[in-house]
Structures are given as C-alpha cells and as structure tokens.
C-alpha cells in the first residue's frame, strides 16, 4: 500500500501527481471465495478488513451493487458517540469510539476525526432523568457524560439563544459527552477499502447479488449475481435496509423494517458551533462540518420506505424545532437535503448473528449504524471466523427474539 504522508505528497507534487497508485485494485472476479461479504458500505468493508487483519482470512470478496461507500455511509450525519443506557450497548460503543479515534493511523488515511464533544440540550425533566440514568451507567464503563448548567451550556454554544424562560420548552441544562466526535464519512469507506484491498480482499463494484444460494443440506453455498454465480461457504449480509430483500431469497424472515431518515445541510458559513448539538426534547441534532455547513438531522419518517428523499412535514418539524433554539438560523439557508434507509429491528437494537441458515451471517438493525462501523466490523469478523459471537455483541443475536427478551435502548438520539 502506497504510504500517504506529507513527504509522499511533496514527492508527488514534483511529478505533477502522476504517480499516485489507485486506492484499490479492480481484480477479476473469481467464482469461489472463502467469504463473500455483500455490501461495500462501512460495515461490509470493515468486516472484510478485520477478517484479513485479525483473523488472517484474506480470500474475501466484497460485492457491491453500486459504488463502494455509496449506501448509508454516504448519507449520514457522522456522529460518533457512546452515550447509551444499557449494559449490553455501552461497552460496544465505547470500543467503537476508541477504534474510530485510532483509525486514521491504523489505515494510513486521514479520517479527519474531530473529537469535538456532543452536548445535549435538555428541555424536559423526564428527559433529564433518562440522561442522568445513562450517565451513571456510562460511568461504570468509562464513557463520559456530565451535566452542565444552562448558563454553561449557552457559554459553550453561543448560538443557542432560544429556549428562554418564556419559550414553549425552556432549556433546563446540558449534558456533555466529551467522547463524541465527527469525522469524514467518505474517508472511512475509502480508508477501509484501501486497507482491506492491500491485505488481499477483493472489492467488486457494480456487482449486484440477486439471490442467496443454499445447498441441498440447507447451508449457504454462495450467491447469484449479475456477473454470475459465486460460491462461498460463508456469506455475510451487510446491506442495511436491503437485508430482508436478500435474506428472503433464501426463505429467511427477519424482524426488520426499512425506514427513511433524512438529513440536510445548510450553506457553508464561518465557524459558529464547535460541538455536536443534540436536542432530544425538540427532536433534532446538528454539527458544523469543516467546510462550514451545518449538518442537521431529525427523526425518521414513520412508514416503511426505500426512498431516499425527504417528506416535507418531517423536514418542517425538524426545522421549526431547530429555529426555536437557534433563531439566528432563520437567515441561514438550506443547501441540500437527502434521505437514507434505516434498518430497524423489532426492538430497535441491532442484530448480529449467524442465521438459521448455516454459513449465512447478518449484521442489521443499526439505524444506519455509522458509529458502530469499526466495532461492528471487528465483532462480525470474529463471529464469521470463530463461529461464535464476540463477547461485546453476545446480547445482540437473534436468540433474544425467541424469548421476546428485547434489548430496549430507550432514546436513540432524537427520540422525543
């Protein structure tokens, strides 16, 4: 792998940048691999990388219907955090956050990881109670969460001028999660792709899996694609909202639904807000990108959807909530908006498991799942390589549904 550094940049400048090698190869497609990973998104690429790096499994093909990094990873709001509530979730996300922080050096690709802290703007007492409950459990696992006064909150976020004493929901206080950060989503996809490729993993774009193939014994034996049949005894489905579409080709039903979550960005402006702002009572969150755009997200649309646009009323709810706390944003302009597919499981927690079909692995139910990419990839690689769940993900198998023992993680970012 060609090393990226200031020196290599300078060296290449003299040659007019004509000697940069491709970030990944375009190898010919074989008809058999040890492992086929479906989906060159964050989770698929990370899984392939860790299979190669941690477990020495390099005969891996990542098959991508479109372009690599083109799914949810291309359209999320890049918030990385570990402020969860349950014992099952917190250690996993603590690990994921730590892995994200080291990713730039691990992959020799600048992820532009900015550990800039998330600040919750708390506007109701029940929400404060819930967040303080999280805080005390997070303390056990070394994740940081601290309450600050509303004065301190406004000092840290000067643009927060709404939510005064006469507002519909006055600001009560803030909660500060210093472990949280943002980074560059495309870099995560490209960095994993480049590093996985360097370890021998093959990435095949424009390769659409049409169905899963099962042997006479019911085990998985490969996939049918638009480029022909590919055999493998282990197949990993890492396709977020499209999971059920694929697994149903093998007769496997999963408790998943696909929904639409939208985000939007403002025009780029000079630095104004240097933390991730999350307003759970009002139902929105945002951060300012290095380019200066406010990257804003809200609540998902209710119905199932495979569309990638935005519903006007859902969008307006988010905007009005934002303006109530940040009234100066009335003069800020919307520049671009889009949607992504969320895969949401019956209990709204992720599913990572070997399915009833031997050799078929799924990772799903992540609500998009950006912040889970490194640890999700590592733990899935562990599951695929060793055949048993990684301890960090042991509670997230399908087993819980058999006993209706749900993992209820109340309070994703914007739950009202």
């Amino acid at each position, binding site marked *: 792998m060609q090393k990226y550094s200031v020196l290599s940049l300078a060296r290449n400048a003299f040659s007019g940048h004509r000697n940069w090698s491709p970030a990944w190869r375009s190898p010919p497609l074989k008809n058999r691999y040890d492992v086929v990973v479906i989906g060159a998104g964050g989770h698929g690429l990370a899984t392939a990388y860790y299979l190669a790096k941690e477990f020495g499994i390099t005969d891996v093909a990542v098959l991508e219907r479109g372009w690599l990094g083109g799914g949810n990873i291309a359209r999320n709001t890049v918030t990385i955090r570990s402020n969860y509530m349950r014992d099952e979730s917190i250690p996993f996300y603590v690990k994921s956050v730590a892995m994200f922080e080291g990713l730039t050096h691990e992959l020799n690709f600048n992820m532009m990881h900015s550990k800039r802290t998330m600040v919750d703007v708390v506007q109701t007492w029940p929400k404060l109670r819930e967040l303080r409950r999280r805080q005390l459990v997070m303390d056990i696992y070394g994740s940081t969460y601290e309450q600050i006064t509303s004065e301190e909150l406004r000092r840290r976020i000067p643009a927060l001028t709404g939510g005064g004493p006469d507002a519909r929901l006055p600001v009560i206080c803030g909660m500060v999660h210093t472990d949280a950060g943002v980074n560059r989503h495309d870099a995560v996809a490209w960095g994993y792709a480049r590093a996985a490729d360097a370890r021998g993993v093959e990435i095949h774009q424009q390769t659409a899996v049409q169905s899963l193939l099962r042997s006479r014994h019911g085990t998985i034996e490969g996939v049918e694609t638009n480029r022909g049949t590919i055999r493998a005894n282990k197949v990993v489905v890492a396709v977020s909202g499209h999971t059920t*579409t694929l697994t149903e080709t093998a007769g496997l039903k999963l408790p998943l639904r696909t929904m639409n979550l939208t985000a939007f960005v403002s025009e780029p402006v000079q630095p104004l807000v240097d933390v991730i702002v999350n307003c759970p009572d009002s139902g929105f969150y945002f951060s300012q990108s290095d380019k200066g755009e406010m990257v804003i997200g809200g609540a998902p649309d209710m119905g199932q959807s495979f569309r990638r646009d935005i519903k006007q009323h859902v969008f307006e709810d988010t905007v009005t909530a934002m303006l109530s706390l940040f009234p100066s944003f009335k003069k800020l302009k919307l520049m671009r908006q889009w949607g992504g597919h969320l895969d949401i499981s019956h209990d709204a927690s992720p599913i990572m498991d070997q399915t009833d079909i031997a050799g078929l692995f799924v990772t799903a139910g992540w609500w998009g799942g950006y912040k889970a990419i490194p640890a999700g990839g590592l733990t899935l690689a562990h599951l695929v390589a060793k055949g048993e769940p990684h301890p960090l993900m042991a509670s997230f198998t399908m087993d819980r549904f058999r006993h209706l023992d749900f993992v209820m993680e109340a309070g994703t970012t914007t739950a009202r």
Partner: protein
Amino acid sequence: MLLIPCPYCGKRNECEFIYGGPVGAKRPDPNAVNDAEWVEYLTVTPNPQGPVQEKWWHARGCGEWLVIWRDTRTHDIMEAPDDAT
C-alpha cells in the same frame, strides 16, 4: 406529505393520519400455535421493496382505520396488486 385516500373523507394530507404499521399475519389463536409461530407473528412484518399493505388511522379526520397499498420505493398509493392475498 402523502395524499392518502380515506374511504369516508376522500384524499387527505398525511398529517391527518397516524401510521399504523404494515398489515402482517392475522393474529393466531395464541393457545393453538407454538412459541416460534407466536414470535414470528409478533416480530416479523412484511418489508418489501414494492407494494406493502399498511394501516393508517385517520386520527385527525373521521377516525377511520384504513388499509392501503403503498409502494415503498415510490410512495405511490395503488390498487391491490394482482397477486395480493
């Protein structure tokens, strides 16, 4: 903002409705099914890329619960597909 046909009121804005989820399997007699069947009934709902049958409640309108077919790829509301059961 969908425009949803209410059998009583005609087409109305989605904001007048509350989403009621996809139409899944009919509730089985809980004393006549095994655990796996009961769990599947509860947790697995259709998730097609294409027409899905779903319930909406005209909560801010006439109060009717209605069932429509909606294509999850386009949000088009349509007649029941030919192969619908």
